[in-house]
């Protein structure tokens, strides 16, 4: 899977409260509406600026906090094709894999806001086309790639009626 898009940079410790703020709790049953507020408390303009295929590039511990699966879902609905971060909080990472939103851990310092990136998901290779550099990310384990390639765990279960995962 090759993904290409423009980088949107964020800092460390972007929580699920930044991504899907609690004051919009009542919109959790209306994801397209909730997606209009995606990442609002980190960048109030993000939802307006983001375009299909764009890539979130963040620092440490992206997605910490609540287990709300709405957070990766509205990032995906907003059109984001992949998230790169120095590290992810565990539940967010798991939820992203489960809903088929690609994400990779790598050194994100060399990437600047607005850079055009091309990502080879299988190899975990990130190319910054703007800067002409390559960054090796930690590749995803095979079973996680399988879930993402199946379109998420829902489609995986629909397809097999059970888990069919290999490490």
């Amino acid at each position, binding site marked *: 899977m090759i993904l290409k898009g423009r980088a949107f940079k964020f800092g460390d*410790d972007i*929580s699920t*409260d*930044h991504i899907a*703020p*609690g*004051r919009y*709790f*009542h*919109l*959790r*049953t*209306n994801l397209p509406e909730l997606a209009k507020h995606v990442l609002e*408390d980190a960048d109030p303009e993000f939802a307006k600026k983001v375009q299909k295929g764009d890539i979130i590039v963040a620092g*440490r*511990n992206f997605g*910490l*906090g*609540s*287990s*709300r*699966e*709405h957070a990766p*879902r509205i990032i995906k609905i907003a059109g984001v094709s992949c998230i790169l971060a120095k*590290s992810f*909080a*565990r*539940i967010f990472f*798991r*939820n992203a894999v*489960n*809903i088929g939103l690609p994400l990779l851990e790598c050194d994100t310092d060399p990437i600047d806001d607005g850079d055009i990136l091309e990502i080879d998901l299988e190899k975990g290779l990130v190319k910054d086309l703007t800067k002409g550099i390559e960054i090796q990310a930690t590749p995803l*384990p095979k*079973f996680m790639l399988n879930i993402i390639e199946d379109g*998420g*765990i*829902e489609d995986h*279960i*629909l397809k097999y009626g*059970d*888990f069919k*995962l290999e*490490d």
Partner: protein
Amino acid sequence: MGKTIAEKILSEHAGKDVKSGDLIIARVDVAMVQDGTGPLAVEAFNRMKLKALANPERSILFIDHAAPSPRKELSNAHKILREFADKYGAALSEVGEGICHQRLVEDFVKPGDVVVGADSHTCTSGALGAFATGMGSTDVAIAFGLGKVWMKVPETHRFVLKGKMPGGVFAKDLILYIIGMIGADGATYKAMEFEGEVIENMSMESRFTLTNMAVEAGAKTGLIATDETTRAYLRERNRESDFREIKPDPDAVYEKTYEIDVSGIEPQVSFPHTVDNTRPISEAKGVKIDQVYIGTCTNGRIEDLRIAAEILRGKKVAKGVRLIVIPASRNVYLKALKEGILEVFVEAGGAVLSPGCGPCVGIHQGVLADGEKVLSTQNRNFKGRMGNPNAFIYLASPATAAATAIKGEIADPREYL
């Protein structure tokens, strides 16, 4: 090779010997959602064409986050959960019954269980010697329907806690201190196992406060071996037969071991906007506070309300401060009622509300104004957490919260005990 608590419980539930790093399909004993995450789980359950619950009595839908409902969209969300519970025979915890994590430890979770919840603080039940972890709505929908989840067996970080807890210092201070020390991602993906003389002498209620906040260090769960304190807690809940011994092997392999002497720890306060931004009370005193909240799955238990009431008895909340008190469950509420504790809060000038998550969720019951500061006994202080990104959240123990309510600024509880 010996096993950690996590490896032992997960080996039982994978039906084979497993060690840290293994990908497993684990059998689930208890699965739950709450009103914030439940509707999405119901949708996922339906989209996956799942037909029935693998374990109806231990599939639970909790209405606690926005309960009673403050607006029609959430009333409709509650209705989705009630209809699902009714259709499939799942357990339903209604408005006023309390916060999911408190109700789970009171009535549902047994030592040795695997518990998955669509709520990050599901790790609370780990103090009962259960492998309890937060997951997404879709994971729990699968656990509802198939009775299993995919999981990686985590490595374990062991926290050996030595010495004697000083007066005025509580489990909340201890866990804030630990998170301040290792950072908000200090235990990401790991299990945290707590042990040592401090744990041996600690009440079950305080142990829940420790494991509740494991996720604030990034951990998959927090675990404590079972002992006579666990047994006594289950006995009090009329379910002593649920007790079983859960402990790590003496030669278990830990990725890291921390030895911490608690004797010199002061009361702790987490400053905005991250939990690991902790300071000792001596460096936190004097910050003017607009609202104090005592409650939540972290610190809304009877022990918490007792200590806060001890400090507030016969005193008044400072002018200009709102005190909100919410018992974590109906059981806690009734106990506090019978012990005269709620009377103390009301006479001091506090507002006592019905069991639930309260203002911690950010949708009702005490949303802050721009620029306001709150000191809360909850577990999180992220920007926007309590409904307003322009407000400031400080975290502390119920004793510090009570002292702060009296003084109107962050205060040292040791001056009042």
